[in-house]
């Protein structure tokens, strides 16, 4: 993986008065109630908040997995509301990476194939696939586990594979929803350090939702959500 420097696009993420309602039968849940946020390239942003405060909802919007009910979500200069499913899929494949609380590795693919998949989605040239996949596994220290399926790996190893998978296609933005919640504190610490080092190595921007104070202390920017609103600290 080469340390390439992306052109500085000062506002990688711009949220303008974003609302998100869920309609659940008769009930209407206002998960986000007017959130505005600017995130710069290269930041390590942490979103804190209690369970149910709207962190995942916010990350889904930033990760282009869902559309806001109201307001605008602009990622790398593109308004997500203006893109259809196909365009958003391509956009995610080319510009975004995801890390999940439960790792979400594909159980039927081994570590190598899991990490390689985003490159295939991106349409990477055959010659590059192997080199870049191995480099990503190397970077998270799991090159020796390349042939293992997720079920054969520990939680910490899974999350490292997931980090390699999120980084392998050199996305502009990595969205991580409670990445350490299912890890013991020691392993969690390792994972945080790993993510932090990735910011330095690759200039990737991270936006992380967490309860974990240990992540928060690495943040370049910290925000807190309460009942779907940003509270500033």
């Amino acid at each position, binding site marked *: 993986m080469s340390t390439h420097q992306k052109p500085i696009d000062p506002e990688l993420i711009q949220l303008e008065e974003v609302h998100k309602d869920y309609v659940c039968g008769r009930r209407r849940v206002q998960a986000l109630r007017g959130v505005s946020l600017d995130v710069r390239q290269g930041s390590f942003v942490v979103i804190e908040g209690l369970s149910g405060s709207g962190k995942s909802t916010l990350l889904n919007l930033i990760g282009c997995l869902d559309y806001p009910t109201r307001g605008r979500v602009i990622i790398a200069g593109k308004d997500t509301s203006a893109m259809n499913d196909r365009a958003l899929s391509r956009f995610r494949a080319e510009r975004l990476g995801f890390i999940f609380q439960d790792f979400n590795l594909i159980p039927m693919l081994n570590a190598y194939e899991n990490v390689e*998949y985003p490159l295939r989605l991106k349409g990477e040239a055959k010659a590059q696939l192997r080199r870049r996949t191995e480099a990503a596994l190397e970077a998270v220290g799991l090159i020796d586990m390349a042939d293992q399926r997720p079920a054969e790996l520990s939680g910490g190893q899974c999350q490292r594979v997931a980090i390699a*998978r999120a980084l392998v296609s050199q996305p502009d933005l990595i969205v991580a929803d409670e990445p350490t919640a299912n890890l013991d504190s020691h392993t969690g610490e390792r994972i945080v350090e790993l993510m932090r080092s990735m910011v330095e190595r690759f200039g990737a921007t991270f936006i992380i939702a967490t309860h974990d104070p240990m992540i928060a202390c690495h943040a370049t920017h910290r925000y807190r959500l309460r009942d779907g609103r940003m509270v500033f600290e």
Partner: protein
Amino acid sequence: MTELKLAFRNIFRHPQRTLATFLAMALACAGLVLFGGYILFIHLSGETHATMMVGHLQIFKRGFYETGAGNPAAFAIEDYEPLRQRLIQDPEIGPRASLVTGMLVLSGIARNPESKNSAPFIAQGWVPADLARLQEWNPYQLFDMRQLAVNRVFFPTEPELDASEPKAGTLGVGLARILGMDLQRQADGSRARLELLCASPLSATPRIGVLYVRRAVPRGLKAFDDRLIFLPLDYASRLMFPGQGTQVTAIVMLLNRVEDVPAVAARLKEIIAQQGLELEVKTWIELLPVHQQAIRMIDLFFYFSLAIVAVVLAFMIYNTIMMGVLERTREIGTLRAMGASRKRVSTVFLLEGLILGLAGGGTGIVLGGVSAWLIDAAEILYQPPTIPFLIKLEILVFQDWRVPLLAYIGCLAVALAAAYLPARKASRLFIAEALRR
């Protein structure tokens, strides 16, 4: 690539579930292949037998087919021999025809002078060699003439008529029984005799002739068995039209290929219209409506089972793949989050259906083929519904490559169609929702 990998590995993720679906698919396909091969056997053996009886096409004087049986003599075809020559020389008919011959139908009362029994008959007069050619028509090699049997008793299959016995013919087995014929040859080698009384259009009193009986032949239909007599055409003409030379009521044509029947029929109609002849043309299908009804009924059974099997299989595959979609919802959400398009996701599940179809269908065809071969090897004697005698049962799975091909394509189509809805559902899952699972 990864989609194929995912499809393959996920199929083997639940070996038991996959095995159940796979086996159902294979057995169903094998069953259908066998049934299809059996249907083909019925069709081809029926076609063979029908052609032996009536040829491919017959030409009559107009009205004979509807009313002629009452007075066949009134429907002799004028200028039969020149017309026959014309047809043989026609550039469209000649090359396609393997036999063009005349046949005379007559009716009357048959009497056994020994037993004094008598019974009404219908007789067909044939050129002996031509009748033999008709009865040897066997393009599918389904009749081994030495293996024909009725009620497990093999009967002789030498030609029915013989030019060296100009006054000898055959009876339907029913007629022989009704007349109380003793068909054992006499010690001096002579044959049993029969008196035929028939109304001739040329004389006021009935004509009487003697017929020597070569043997009794099973005809399949009771109506034929009880009434039908075959005799040489020349003798029949002499009985009916004394001094008038050879007369016929039908021109019977045998073609090289059954597929040519419609084209030749059309050409015949054209010639008849052009020449203003008082003739009409019937194909073997029109001549044997009962036969066609039996075939159609069997076909209906086949299509009915086909439909049921297809629906049951489709449900099974749908179920198997839908279970996969439900179990792997979060996985699907993950693929989509990483940027997999809807098409990529649905491809995985369609491929799973396709793989099940390819494997199940392929195994089924092999299984069906092996069973067909075993049935073949068992040399089972069997009486198809449209044939009056027992012949060796053959399941024609590979005789016509369309049977296994259609079965295979059918399996694939059912599998793909059944996978379509789950695949579509997978591709349209709401990503954020799928990830919450």
